[in-house]
């Protein structure tokens, strides 16, 4: 009896299913033999990837289709150029607006103008410039990954662009190493002076002196500089870690993991570029006297007393108790 019931149920199921199968036809009404064949959607219901067996010792080549790849491609080709463009151009626009409304922050002259105080020693400047020069090449070659084929290739042609992109890729991979070393040097050199404190909160509440004429007190680094420091260290290490994952493909993660690394790397990269644009602005065009700190290493004492008064006091106290300046430098008092 149970067997008869089963057969009856099977027959009823087939009878119901038959019209559905019969309805799969081509637009002209002819039967479509490929309609019921195995398709991509059906395969994905069995397994998240479409893969097979291969005879070469490269297991990753067995993957034919991986669905997340489409999401990555959608991000890479649609979202990323928009996000990157908005972040970088938005920062440039904001800096331009700031420059034309606030203007250049001028050096305030006092009786101490002309006297110099050592702000960064030779090794500090070396570490900064090694990181900075690498960062500029990494940024340009990184932006070329996103915008090159859209903006540069129509201008210079595919062959010149291919050569440029190839050398840009070499530069990106190889200069990443001195960049990472520079970030580590700066971390060790300046971490002690970049620990956030109560004074930083006061500096931030007063707008850092950027928005008004006030000059809030600051130690060797003010809160804005501390934010740049932690951004460089945090983003630098994150870019290094995600970059290494891509330089050594499949060493630590699978294809999906590498796509995620690329997404993180690119998103941090464009925010990093925007942040450093602000840093370059305030260290050169935005504030008179600021560039000297990384240029010659010595800054005007009047400038230092206005922008880093607590640090100057600390240095002068050290001078009082013994020499802290190098050879050929004028004491700050």
């Amino acid at each position: 009896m149970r067997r008869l019931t089963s057969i009856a149920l099977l027959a009823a199921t087939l009878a119901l299913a038959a019209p559905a199968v019969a309805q799969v036809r081509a637009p002209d009404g002819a039967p479509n033999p490929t309609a019921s064949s195995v398709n991509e959607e059906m395969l994905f219901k069995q397994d998240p990837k479409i893969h097979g067996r291969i005879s070469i010792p490269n297991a990753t080549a067995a993957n034919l289709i991986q669905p997340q790849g489409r999401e990555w491609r959608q991000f890479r080709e649609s979202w990323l150029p928009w996000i990157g463009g908005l972040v970088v151009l938005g920062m440039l626009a904001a800096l331009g607006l700031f420059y034309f409304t606030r203007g250049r922050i001028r050096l305030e002259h006092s009786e101490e103008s002309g006297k110099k105080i050592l702000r960064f020693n030779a090794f500090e400047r070396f570490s900064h410039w090694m990181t900075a020069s690498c960062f500029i090449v990494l940024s340009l070659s990184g932006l070329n990954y996103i915008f090159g084929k859209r903006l540069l290739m129509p201008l210079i042609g595919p062959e010149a662009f291919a050569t440029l992109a190839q050398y840009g890729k070499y530069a990106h991979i190889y200069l990443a190493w001195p960049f990472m070393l520079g970030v580590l040097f700066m971390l060790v050199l300046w971490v002690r002076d970049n620990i956030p404190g109560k004074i930083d909160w006061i500096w931030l509440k007063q707008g850092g002196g950027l928005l008004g004429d006030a000059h809030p007190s600051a130690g060797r680094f003010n809160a804005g500089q501390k934010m740049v420091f932690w951004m460089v260290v945090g983003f630098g290490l994150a870019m290094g870690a995600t970059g290494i994952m891509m330089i050594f493909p499949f060493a630590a993660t699978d294809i999906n993991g590498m796509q995620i690394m690329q997404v993180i790397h690119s998103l941090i990269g464009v925010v990093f570029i925007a942040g450093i644009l602000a840093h370059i602005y305030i260290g050169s065009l935005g504030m008179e006297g600021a560039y000297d700190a990384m240029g010659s290493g010595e800054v005007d004492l009047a400038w230092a007393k206005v922008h880093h008064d607590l640090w100057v006091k600390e240095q002068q106290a050290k001078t009082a108790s013994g020499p802290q300046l190098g050879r050929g430098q004028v004491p700050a008092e």
Partner: protein
Amino acid sequence: MKAFLVAVAAALVLATAASFLLAENQRFAYQAFATSGARVSDPGNNLVGPRWTGDIKDPGQGGHHKAETGS
């Protein structure tokens, strides 16, 4: 300026060193993945030869011609 120039020179030296170290750990696909039973796109011994450009002028004959001259 001196610190800047030394920094740029150091970056170039380190980048060059990195390029050699990375090249040491890298092999071409035909070296890494070829087996006694599978040949992987070896540019020296593949079917079209090392000088094949892929630029086929005449679709009717070009492929054969390039393959013959290249090997």
